[in-house]
């Protein structure tokens, strides 16, 4: 497919990276020539220097041949205007990044409809959602939702002395009976899509798929249940912080935000009347302790500087704060931080590109089963996809044990009429089901691709 990306900042570049890896024809547009030059050195893409909200530039890029137009510049207005123009000039689908937190969900919906934009992306909002999910289930490293929150996929890091260590999956299943499935394991740098004989070790990162209630059951067997966070401290009054605070305050969790800038603090007070806003330097340990760091259930670092976030998280970890979360944008830094023991990292750009990737992947498959949601897990080495079966398919009605699946691919869940099924060998996929597939082979475009 032909994809045009305007604005090559952090978000734009990550989307670009995904799109090139998927093999699409990508054109990038930016007003800064040197950014374009360095990107064309690395990626096999064409570049055009110019403003996306300019008709002539769009025409030059051949907008009438573009399948997906992504506007990811730093300015919401430019993004919306350029998406509108692109759509009018012949682009088939448009995606706009809109980050201003003062737009309500209704505003966004209205703009989306009026400007005929396919997706409005808010990276900070998505990241806040991810953070919120983890805070609700603090023992997980990462929580992803399928099917309107019917199904959850949870990444969990096993402690060296974990009860599960040394057991194979079949034993675990018979010992801790609940409806769940361990669907992916990361050990050091290698990824396994495990079968029943796979033996877990302490230190593994495992992916578990299950219904909300079943997860709680499983965790209580393991003695992993921590109480849901009641008091959260956030460092840095970024947009992500605002979104997160809104979500947390919505379910009655108390939030304390610390930010350096007086002006920012006033803005925060305006937007979040229920939150406690502290004006001060969040990197000062004294201040953190004074503000009751030790009594917090969770500590979230959301400043604009990755390094600051990482270091602060280490400090909070050393003070035994139960849950420590941090926002890290740079992939290299997050890999380093993870090696050093920080495992709960969230990156706004990753959350964003998952959405774009799912959308584009769904577009490139013309037949039958559509990708509904897509998540990248385990350092983006595994994909979890939710398909809706919309057409007849040779997979349908065949018990799973009789299907010859592709290597490193797993049917992890079926949702039928709001009922969730963790499939065994005798279950089969039926018309109208939603199916969750886990795959380490990142090329699945539709459901029938799972067959070997």
């Amino acid at each position, binding site marked *: 497919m*032909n994809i045009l990306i305007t604005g090559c900042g952090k978000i734009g570049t990550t989307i670009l990276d995904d799109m*090139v890896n998927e093999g699409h*024809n*990508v*054109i990038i547009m930016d007003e800064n*020539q040197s950014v374009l030059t360095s990107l*064309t*050195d*690395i*990626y*096999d*893409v*064409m570049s055009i*220097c110019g403003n996306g909200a300019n008709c002539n530039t769009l025409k*030059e890029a051949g907008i009438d041949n573009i399948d997906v137009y992504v506007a990811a510049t730093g300015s919401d207005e430019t993004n919306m205007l350029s998406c509108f123009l692109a759509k009018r000039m012949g682009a088939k689908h448009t995606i706009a990044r809109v980050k201003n937190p003062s737009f309500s969900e209704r505003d966004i919906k209205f703009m989306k409809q009026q400007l005929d934009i396919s997706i409005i992306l808010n990276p900070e909002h998505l990241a806040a959602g991810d953070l919120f999910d983890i805070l609700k289930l603090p023992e997980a490293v990462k929580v992803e939702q399928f099917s309107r929150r019917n199904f959850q996929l949870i990444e969990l890091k096993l402690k060296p002395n974990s009860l599960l260590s040394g057991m194979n999956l079949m034993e675990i299943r018979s010992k801790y009976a609940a409806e769940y499935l361990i669907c992916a394991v990361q050990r050091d740098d290698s990824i396994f899509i495990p079968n029943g004989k796979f033996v877990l070790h302490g230190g593994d990162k495992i992916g578990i798929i299950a219904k909300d209630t079943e997860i709680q059951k499983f965790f209580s067997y393991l003695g992993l249940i921590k109480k849901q966070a009641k008091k959260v401290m956030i460092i840095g009054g970024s947009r992500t912080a605002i979104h997160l605070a809104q979500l947390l305050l919505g379910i009655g969790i108390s939030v304390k935000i610390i930010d350096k800038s007086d002006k920012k603090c006033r803005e925060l007070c305006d937007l979040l009347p229920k939150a406690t806003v502290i004006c001060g330097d969040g990197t000062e340990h004294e201040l953190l302790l004074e503000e009751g760091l030790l009594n917090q259930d969770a500590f979230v670092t959301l400043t604009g500087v990755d390094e600051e976030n990482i270091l602060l998280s280490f400090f909070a970890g050393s003070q035994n704060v139960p849950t420590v979360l941090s926002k890290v944008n740079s992939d290299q830094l997050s890999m380093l931080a993870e090696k050093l023991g920080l495992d709960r990292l969230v990156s706004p750009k990753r959350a964003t590109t998952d959405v774009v990737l799912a959308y584009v992947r769904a577009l490139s498959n013309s037949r039958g089963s559509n990708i509904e949601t897509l998540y990248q897990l385990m350092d983006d080495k595994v994909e979890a996809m939710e398909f809706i079966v919309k057409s007849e398919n040779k997979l349908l009605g065949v018990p799973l044990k009789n299907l010859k699946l592709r290597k490193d691919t797993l049917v992890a869940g079926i949702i039928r009429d709001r009922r969730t099924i963790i499939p065994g060998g005798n279950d089969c996929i039926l018309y109208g089901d939603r199916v969750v597939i886990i795959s380490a082979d990142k090329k699945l475009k539709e459901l029938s691709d799972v067959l070997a």
Partner: protein
Amino acid sequence: MNKRMIIEMTGQIVRLESILLLLPFIVAIIYGEQNCYIAFIAPSVISFAVGSLMVLYAKPKSKVIYAPDGFVITALAWTLLSLIGALPFVISGEIKSYTDAFFETVSGFTTTGASILNNVEVLSHATLFWRSFTHFIGGMGVLVLLIAILPSSSVRSIHILRAEVPGPTMGKLVPKMRSTSMLLYIIYSGLTLLLFIFLVAGGMPVFDSIIHAFGTAGTGGFGLKSDSIGGYSPYLQWVIAIFMILFGVNFNVYYLILLKKFKSAIKNNELWAYLGIITLSTILITVNVSPMYNGLGESLRQSFFQVTSIISTTGFATTNFDLWPVFSKTILILLMFSGACAGSTGGGLKVSRLVLLYKLIKRSFKTMLHPRSVEVIKLDNKTVDETTLQSVSVYFALYMLCVATFLLIICIEPFDFLTNFSAVVSCFNNIGPGLSQVGPTCNFSEYSVFSKWLLSLAMLMGRLEIYPIILATQLFFSERKSKV
């Protein structure tokens, strides 16, 4: 540097040549030239073996090609290609010394068309075909061909194309490298086929048409006859002259025409400058040489053909322009420097660089008068960034320095200044014939062995726009030093 990737890519190129060598072998079979069979089969087998060994040995851990690797791959590939491509001439015994054969092959691949053969007409069909086929391959570039046919070899192959495709900046036609390369070859082959049809329709024998189509397409200049195109009908001369202009145009223009974007196609500043230079030079020379020919028609044809042949850096000739007045000869020498458009198959400095240099000069006059004036330079209505401008002026200086160096060394030879000067300029700009003793009716066979190697180097440097050869040598020595 990613050495294994360099070895792999070079190996692929060598293997590609083994396939290319089979085409003249087919020609030999068609014409029943049995003495040529072994001359093409042996190098083909050798290059296949060597290439496969290199690819097998390489097994690169990472497929990333960095900027220095692009230069090294380009320089190595072209050198190896010429070294192997020279073998058929020696094995068939049609060119006795390896130096001569190498000179002839480099001249072919770099689309120069300078020859050391005193008598072209005695060569076998297969050898003649190979000689001209090297023009066709070298014209658009062998690495472009490799990228077009290899399934996504490396993510950063742009560094290779940048080193091989001539011009100040490298513009892609479509987002993907591979599709761009394919498109270039499709346009190139399509134009060549069109020329072939025109030639055959004009009564040229089929084999001659193929040879001349290759020679024109790559803007090379190897022909079949000692008097080049002079013996063919005026119609054929006009056709070749017009196609020489066409192959000297930036191929992006053709792509835009294919997309029916005529407006953006004719907005190309370089194209107009190129056509302007051709028109002006033709008029001046026509007037200057008209006493030598019968009537305006013939003098116009002769001057038009010679001008297009030199500016597109092809080097065909219909008349011995060495006998022309000094004024006309000087114009031709200047045209040798100008060369064709960027992104075409022609050589030389490239018209777009001249346009930018002219604009730079104009700007510098203005800043002298108004020291605080700020002015951007535009090409095709787009602002050219300062790094490109700087690289253009540096390239010009480097280019002149290279000409001077080659000239100084070549002047050790016992020829007159004009011979040596035109030999260097003609080789460095990939034209072919020079003036005086290397004029259109003469050849380079009188030069010493050393000078032939030197001129071969000049041709390679000219084709690859200087940097790859120098940088690859520099990297080679610095790597060795760091090992010791």
